[in-house]
């Protein structure tokens, strides 16, 4: 009996040693191949049913999902002129819908209910989260092909963002709650606004506010232990949440447009602190080692022991693609194919069952990035 058990154990160990290192080879799809099918699935949900379901969990995801989808479409429209008209039409529909939502309920439409718990410094209430994402969405649209229809709405948001960043205190996303993520999106939005409305002589309208905000971020928002930018802080710049995967990867993506050396430095630090690789698979955690925090609506679920954060892993695609880390991108894609449960329909459209609209849109955006940032630089 003992010999039988021993034989079985030895055979299982040898089999595991053969199988596990080979497993990733079955998930070796090229990352960029996924972008088109993901975008197609997103466009098929034209009525926004997926987004509506997601809103019930987190209305922020609705706006972020729209931004990521617009980003994916904008990059694909720039990369492939034959698809430009279709993608522009889809972007315009999303912008119409989003501006209508913003006009209907102001920033609260896209904020979690606790936004009502305090008072915004600005009157009427303004959230940098909402204004920066809207400014970036419309800016990306104008970057592909300018259209007078969007100019007024774009300039209005850009001025709000510029004013918020130029104030003495940090800009709020929620009452007395500021986020590095939203400041980074704001910086990218201002750079794109300068590209579409600027003078092009290096003395663009928002160059000074961009430079001042970057200097202040480096001075006030860097965590002393990890060297990473913290996630959230008060209007006075006092850190609340330290570095988090749900913030840092998108921050890196946006910083790449305004301060490439800072983006590369943050990527190297974040990859070392949050990234994991094993047997050809890659994923990211939400918090650096020893700094684990409570799971919340921003972190999403975190799978213990392996330290897998689906949210952070999804956004790591964006940072890896932005800095051109193809090896990491392949490892992340292998994990996505293995553990996110791809669902392909007969028309080749793709979505991931373990994800949601914002997750799929973030990956579609990540796997399309390049042309928009190139044009905006």
């Amino acid at each position, binding site marked *: 009996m003992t*010999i*039988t058990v021993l*034989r*079985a154990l030895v*055979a*299982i160990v*040898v*089999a*595991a040693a*053969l*199988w*596990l290192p080979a*497993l990733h080879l079955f998930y070796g799809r090229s990352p960029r191949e996924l972008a088109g099918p993901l975008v197609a699935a997103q466009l098929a949900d034209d009525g926004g049913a997926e987004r509506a*379901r*997601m809103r*019930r*969990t*987190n209305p922020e995801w609705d706006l972020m999902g729209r931004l990521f989808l617009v980003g994916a479409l904008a990059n694909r429209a720039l990369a492939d002129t034959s698809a430009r008209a279709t993608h522009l039409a889809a972007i315009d529909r999303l912008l119409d819908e989003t501006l209508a939502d913003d006009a209907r309920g102001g920033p609260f439409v896209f904020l979690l209910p606790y936004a009502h718990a305090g008072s915004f410094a600005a009157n009427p209430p303004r959230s940098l989260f909402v204004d920066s994402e809207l400014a970036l969405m419309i800016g990306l649209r104008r970057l592909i092909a300018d259209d007078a229809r969007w100019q007024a709405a774009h300039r209005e948001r850009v001025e709000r963002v510029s004013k918020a960043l130029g104030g003495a205190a940090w800009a709020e996303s929620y009452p007395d709650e500021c986020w590095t993520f939203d400041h980074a999106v704001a910086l990218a939005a201002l750079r794109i606004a300068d590209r579409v409305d600027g003078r092009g002589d290096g003395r663009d309208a928002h160059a000074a506010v961009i430079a001042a905000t970057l200097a202040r971020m480096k001075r006030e928002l860097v965590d002393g232990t990890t060297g990473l930018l913290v996630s959230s802080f008060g209007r006075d710049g006092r850190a609340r949440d330290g570095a988090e995967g749900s913030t840092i990867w998108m921050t890196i993506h946006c910083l790449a447009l305004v301060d490439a050396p800072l983006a590369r430095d943050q990527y190297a630090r974040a990859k070392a602190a949050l990234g994991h690789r094993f047997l050809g698979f890659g994923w990211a955690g939400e918090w650096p080692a020893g700094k684990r925090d409570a799971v919340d*609506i921003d972190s*999403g*679920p975190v*799978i213990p022991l392996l330290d897998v954060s*689906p*949210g952070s892993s999804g956004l790591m695609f964006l940072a890896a693609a932005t800095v051109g880390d193809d090896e990491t991108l392949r490892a992340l894609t292998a994990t996505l194919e*293995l553990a*996110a*449960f791809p*669902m392909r329909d007969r028309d080749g459209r793709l979505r991931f*069952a*373990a*994800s*949601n609209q914002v*997750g799929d849109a973030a990956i579609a955006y990540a796997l399309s990035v390049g042309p928009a940032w190139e044009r905006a630089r």
Partner: protein
Amino acid sequence: MTPRRRSLPRTLALRAALLVAAYGVAHLAGLRPLTTILSGSSPPSSLPPLAASALGCAYVVLHFAAIVVAPILAIAAALLAAADRLAPGRATERAR
């Protein structure tokens, strides 16, 4: 007359097949979309949220059992079967 004991390779292969079959049943039952709980979203189902989440978790476990564990058991079964074929005398001795 004593009943014949199932050989070790067959036992392992059978367990691998059972894991794959259970995963297949879960897949055909339409549990895959319920894994959206991993993203923190509510499952797209008319089931009560707790039941949908439990079924989503069960699907994840069965998926990894079928993709990671079952092939290991199958390979182990093949290795043992090959070893038994190469040294049949010892295998018979062990079966006693």
